[in-house]
């Protein structure tokens, strides 16, 4: 019972939704929602335009994150050094990108296992993440889009990464990473993802509360 009582009094943050409709629905279910602007980069962005866009997004949504999707480690460092007024996330999956994101000290590396045949994360990277305070983002939405066989693989990689995140005390959060409204899930349902990856209930809660709050303090 105490679990459910504290649940209703709890404070939950959704760290990564990627469209307006997802933001609107998530706002009904979470206390705070971070709107993510996805930026696919092959070369340096137009910084003037990007700054303007981020300013507009901050006006509309308050808290904003910039999600870099790139193959080029140098672009991660460039964006980090420009320090736009947004959290900086990096879409994981490429091993060199995973490492560069952690070394550059961005705010979060999202799904380092995405599109891989391994977790894309190991104890060396876990050590760097912990040292540089880079959070690992555990996203639900990739699970929604794939076959049962691929769900097994994703869950294996996520559970393995969680073991390392726990052992090295790496910051982390659980998020829908919803691209649209239909991928949004409630906070308690996102917690169940963490619990099924091996988290204790308080660890899963911290992944939607304490850790997100700590990251938001950087803004």
């Amino acid at each position, binding site marked *: *019972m105490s679990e459910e009582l504290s649940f209703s009094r709890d404070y939950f943050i959704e760290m990564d939704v990627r469209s307006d409709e997802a933001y609107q629905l998530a706002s009904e279910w979470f206390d705070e929602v971070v709107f993510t602007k996805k930026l696919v980069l092959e070369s340096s962005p137009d910084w003037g335009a990007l700054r303007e866009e981020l300013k507009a997004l901050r006006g509309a949504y308050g808290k904003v994150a910039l999600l870099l999707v790139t193959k080029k480690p140098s672009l991660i460092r460039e964006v980090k050094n420009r320090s736009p007024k947004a959290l900086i996330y990096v879409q994981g999956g490429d091993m060199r990108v995973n490492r560069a994101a952690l070394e550059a000290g961005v705010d979060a590396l999202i799904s380092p296992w995405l599109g891989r045949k391994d977790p894309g994360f190991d104890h060396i990277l876990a050590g760097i993440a912990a040292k540089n305070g880079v959070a690992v983002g555990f996203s639900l939405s990739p699970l929604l889009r794939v076959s049962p066989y691929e769900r097994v693989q994703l869950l294996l990689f996520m559970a393995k990464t969680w073991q390392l995140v726990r052992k090295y005390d790496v910051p982390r959060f659980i998020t829908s990473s919803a691209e649209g409204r239909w991928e949004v899930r409630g906070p308690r349902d996102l917690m169940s993802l963490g619990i099924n990856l091996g988290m204790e209930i308080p660890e899963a809660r911290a992944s939607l509360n304490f850790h997100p709050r700590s990251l938001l303090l950087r803004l």
Partner: protein
Amino acid sequence: MKEKPKYLPPTLRDKYRYIAFQVIGERAFTGEEIKRAIWEASLSTLGFLGSAKAKPWFIKFDEKSQTGIVRVDREHVEELRFALALVTQVNGSRAIFRTLGVSGTIKRLKGKFLAQYGWR
């Protein structure tokens, strides 16, 4: 002569939890559709062996508010919640399951999580 088995002694009775949920869909769903969706979610997530252990059981669905109650073995609440979180469609139409709360009795569940949807 009895045509049905008697109730089990208390020590052998299963310990259940009741989960209140809301369905957000691109259209309204019937109780039958929701019941089936819960079964499919359980079978694909937990298999028939895991489902036999979790014992998910559709209790009721209010079509007006699109909210309902499902029962589950108390050791497997989080597994069923996860199974429901991974539902993306019900009978071909897009849908989201959102759990509202969990309780050991239907009465408390209704009072705490479903009264606001018109349940009594």
